[in-house]
C-alpha cells in the first residue's frame, strides 16, 4: 500500500493535476459536489472529504446539462457536427464505495450491448477513479444492506482504492490504469496492506425478497400512504447517484443550435405528458410508485441488481422526509 500524509494531500493532488484533469469533492458555498481541483487551488471551493457529497459523481459521466451535437439549419440545408472528443484523461478523487456501485448501475444502462452510449463510454474509459472507503457512515446510510462492500470498492469502476487511517491516506491500485497513475506520482510512502476500522451502519435489512414481493403490490394501498406527502419536486432524483433519466433539448442561436442532454425527473408532470395531452402517470401516487418500483423491482427484472445503492441522499435531502428505507422495511415486513 502506498501512503500520503493527510497534510500533504494537496501536493499529491497537485502532482496528479499536472497530468490529468482532476475532479475532487468540494464544498462550494454550502453545496457539496465534484468539481475541478483548480477550484480548490484558486480558493473558490474547499476540499470536502468529511462525508459524501450532496450531488453525486454521476455528474462526471452524465452531467446535468451536456451538449450532444451541434447543428446548422439554413434554408433546406442541415449540417450536424458531433462534439469534440475529450482531450485529457481525468482523475476523480474520493468517490465513495456506494457511488462506485451506482456507476456500475449506470454502466448497465449506458454500456448496454445493443445501444452503447459513446459519450458516456468515452468518459468512463478516460476516467481514473480513486475510491475512498467510509469509516464513519451517516445515520441515513444503508449501502451495506444494498450489497455494497464497505471494505472494497466496486472493482469494475474503481482504479485505486483509498483508505483513511488517522492522519494518512493509503492507496491500493486496483486496475492497471490506477497502477500507472499511482506510479507517476513521486514522494509516496509505503506501508503494509491493511483495512481501516469501520463503524457499523445503523440501518440494516435484507432486501433480497423485495422484487418478488413488490411484483404483486402495484395496486397496494401502501402507495397512497407513502405518496401523499410527496411534493413531486425533483430533489430525490437529482441527488440520486443512479437516477439517469434525461431529456433532450434545444439551445438555438439563430441558424445554429445545440442539442442538449439534460437531467429529467420522473417526478415532473412533463416527463410523461404526451403531445395530445394524455398523461399516463397522473399524480403523486403513480410517480412515487414508478420511482420506487424502478429502483427496487423493474431494474432488478432487467439487470438482476437494485437501482438503489443505499447512499441515503434522498432520505437526507427529501424536503418532506419521504424515507425509502422505511418503505423497504415495511414491505419486507
Amino acid at each position, binding site marked *: 500500500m502506498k501512503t500520503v500524509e493527510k497534510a500533504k494531500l494537496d501536493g499529491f493532488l497537485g502532482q496528479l493535476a499536472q497530468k490529468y484533469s482532476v475532479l475532487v469533492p468540494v464544498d462550494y458555498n454550502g453545496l457539496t459536489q465534484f468539481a475541478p481541483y483548480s477550484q480548490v487551488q484558486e480558493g473558490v471551493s474547499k476540499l470536502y472529504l468529511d462525508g459524501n457529497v450532496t450531488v453525486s459523481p454521476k455528474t462526471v459521466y452524465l452531467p446535468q446539462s451536456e451538449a450532444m451535437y*451541434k447543428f*446548422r439549419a439554413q*434554408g*433546406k*440545408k*442541415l*449540417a450536424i*457536427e458531433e462534439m469534440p472528443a475529450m482531450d485529457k484523461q481525468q482523475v476523480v478523487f474520493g468517490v465513495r464505495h456506494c457511488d462506485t456501485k451506482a456507476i456500475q448501475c449506470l454502466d448497465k444502462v449506458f454500456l448496454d450491448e445493443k445501444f452503447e452510449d459513446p459519450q458516456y463510454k468515452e468518459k468512463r474509459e478516460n476516467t481514473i477513479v480513486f475510491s475512498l472507503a467510509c469509516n464513519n457512515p451517516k445515520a441515513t446510510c444503508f449501502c451495506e444492506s444494498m450489497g455494497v462492500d464497505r471494505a472494497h470498492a466496486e472493482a469494475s469502476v474503481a482504479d485505486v482504492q483509498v483508505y483513511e487511517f488517522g492522519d494518512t491516506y493509503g492507496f491500493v491500485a486496483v486496475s492497471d490504469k490506477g497502477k500507472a497513475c499511482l506510479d507517476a506520482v513521486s514522494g509516496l510512502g509505503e506501508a503494509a496492506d491493511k483495512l481501516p476500522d469501520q463503524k457499523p451502519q445503523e440501518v440494516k435489512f435484507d432486501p433480497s425478497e423485495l422484487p418478488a414481493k413488490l411484483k404483486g403490490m402495484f395496486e397496494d394501498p401502501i402507495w397512497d400512504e407513502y405518496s401523499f406527502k410527496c411534493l413531486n419536486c425533483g430533489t430525490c432524483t437529482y441527488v440520486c447517484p443512479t437516477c439517469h433519466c434525461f431529456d433532450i433539448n434545444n439551445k438555438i*442561436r439563430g441558424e*445554429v443550435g445545440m442539442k442538449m442532454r439534460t437531467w429529467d425527473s420522473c417526478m415532473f408532470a412533463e416527463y410523461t405528458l404526451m403531445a395530445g395531452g394524455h398523461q399516463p402517470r397522473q399524480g403523486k401516487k403513480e410517480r412515487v410508485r414508478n420511482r420506487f418500483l424502478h429502483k427496487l423491482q423493474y431494474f432488478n427484472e432487467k439487470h438482476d441488481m437494485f437501482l438503489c445503492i443505499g447512499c441515503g441522499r434522498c432520505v437526507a435531502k427529501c424536503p418532506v422526509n419521504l424515507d425509502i428505507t422505511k418503505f423497504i422495511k415495511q414491505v419486507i415486513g
Partner: protein
Amino acid sequence: MSNNAVENFEPKILVFACNWCTYAGADLAGTSRLQYPPNVRVLRVPCSCRVNPQFVLRAFQRGIDGVLVAGCHPGDCHYTTGNYYTRRRFLLITRMMDYMGIDSRRFHTRWISGAEGPKFQQVVTEMINEVKAIGPNDKFRDDAKIEVKAVETNE
C-alpha cells in the same frame, strides 16, 4: 475590454412598443424623416402591459444591451388601465435589476403617444448614447457560443 472596443461598441436596443401609441409614434418619426441611430429593434405589443418582466430578462440574457418599454401616457391606455399595471410592474423590475447587479440605466419605460414622433426619436437617441457610455452588458448573460461550419445553400 479595451477602450477601443468600448468606443466602437454599437449597443443592441430592444423596444417594446405599444400598438396604439408608441408604434404609431415610431412610425411618425419615420414618416417625418427624423434621424436616429440604427441600433434599435422594435417589437410591437398590444399594450405595454403585455410586456412580461420575463421578456425583459430574456432579452438581457440573450445579448440585448438595453430595453425600452414604451406605452400610452397614464390615462390614455387603449384598454383603459393597462399602463398603470405596467408602471407598478416596472417600478419593481427596475429595482430588481439593480439588485441583480444589472445597471438599471439599461432599462427604461417611457410614455410616448402616437403624436410624439420627435419624443420617440429623442428617447431612443438618448438611450443609445447612454447605453453606449455604459458599455456592453456582461451580466446575467447566457454566453453559449455555438459554432458550426457554414453550409452551401442554393438560395
